[in-house]
Each structure stands twice: as structure tokens, then as C-alpha cells.
């Protein structure tokens, strides 16, 4: 029998909007969910831009972006290796019960309104208190 009671938690702050780091966040989160943990992603600062409508795949590469040349090279190599798209990973994340929190202060700083964000991706809006509340009893916390 699968024990579904009181699972461990993983909470990840997604500060970076870089494509490769969004991959890291989603892969770790999906791994955690697959191994029976709960997972929450807190999108803040540059990470929040990826929650804008149509913005998920738009992040630059954190290194060797070379005006998009490096990114397209990495993307073609990922395609060859059959790596899932960010959209696919996000869909799995939601299907396995992952939670997405958007940082309200970042929205204010960046002049982003709720209408600018993809509502299908976001579960709630919050601030640092929401993060600490979940992170304090998490087995894994990461800042990406």
C-alpha cells in the first residue's frame, strides 16, 4: 500500500529566469513529487518573468547565451537527447500536485499585473511569510 499520509516537502525559490535554471527547478521538483514528496515553487524576481503569458520558454541561457546562439545550440542538443520541454515538465508538475506561488512584491517592482501572468500556472500569490511557513518544515529547500 502506498502511504499518502503527511509527506515530506521540497520548497524551491525560483529567483532566476534563465532557461537552464528553470529546467533545474522543475526537474528537481518533479523528482521530489515522483518520490512521494510535496513540492512548492516560489517564483520571484527574474523567475517571475517566466510565469508571464507565453514566457515560460523565453529565458536566456545562464552562461554562453551569445545573443541566443548558445541557447539554440543547447536546445537542439536537448532535442536530440529527447529532453522534455519546460511546458511538458510544468504540466507534469501540476498533475502531480505541485504548487506555484508568485511573489507579489516582484509584481509591484516589475509593474506586472495578474492579467500579465499565466493564471493556469499559478496557485497562489504570496510573500516571504508564505515561503517561510512552508520551508520551515521542508526536508529540501533550494534557491535557484
Amino acid at each position, binding site marked *: *500500500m*502506498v*502511504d499518502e499520509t503527511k509527506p515530506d516537502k521540497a520548497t524551491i525559490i525560483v529567483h532566476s529566469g534563465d532557461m537552464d535554471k528553470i529546467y533545474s527547478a522543475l*526537474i528537481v521538483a*518533479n*523528482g521530489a*513529487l*515522483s*518520490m*512521494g514528496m510535496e513540492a512548492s515553487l516560489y517564483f520571484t524576481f527574474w523567475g517571475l518573468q517566466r510565469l508571464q503569458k507565453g514566457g515560460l520558454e523565453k529565458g536566456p541561457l545562464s552562461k554562453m547565451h551569445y545573443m541566443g546562439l548558445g541557447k539554440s545550440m543547447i536546445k537542439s542538443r536537448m532535442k536530440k*537527447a*529527447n*529532453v*522534455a520541454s519546460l511546458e511538458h*515538465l510544468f504540466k*507534469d508538475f501540476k*498533475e*502531480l500536485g505541485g504548487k506555484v506561488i508568485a511573489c507579489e512584491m516582484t509584481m509591484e517592482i516589475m509593474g506586472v499585473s495578474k492579467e500579465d501572468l499565466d493564471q493556469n500556472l499559478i496557485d497562489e500569490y504570496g510573500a516571504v511569510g508564505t515561503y517561510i511557513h512552508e520551508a520551515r518544515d521542508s526536508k529540501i529547500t533550494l534557491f535557484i
Partner: protein
Amino acid sequence: MADIKIDVKGETCPVPLVEMRKALKKAAPGEIVEVEGTHPASKKEIPMAVESLGAELVGVEEEDGVWKIRIRK
């Protein structure tokens, strides 16, 4: 033999693990889920996940680079 069969041949990290989890969620208690794939790390990691999920690992086989893992929910 298996109640639910999933084919993740050619898929890479983290898809085999995720698909196993999705199938196990859909399965009824006692049902057998069979996962077939080629991603080497997943052959080790799916049994780890099965253990943390409290499910039962029924068997792991491999032939010509294709592994088959059977899990009872």
C-alpha cells in the same frame, strides 16, 4: 499480467520517474504497474522511489538495454 503498462523507452530524466508516479497514482491498491524503459539511471532510481512511496517492488529485469520494472501499489 500487469494492470497498467507504461512505455518510457527513449525518454530521459525526469520523465521515466514522473510517468511511474503518475501511473502509480492512477492504480488501485494491489494493482501491478509495469514500466519499460531505456534510461540507465531510472533503472536504479525507480526502485528508490518505489521504496519511498511505500509500494512493493515486484521485479526488475533487463534485456538488450531495455529494462522492465514491476511495482505493486
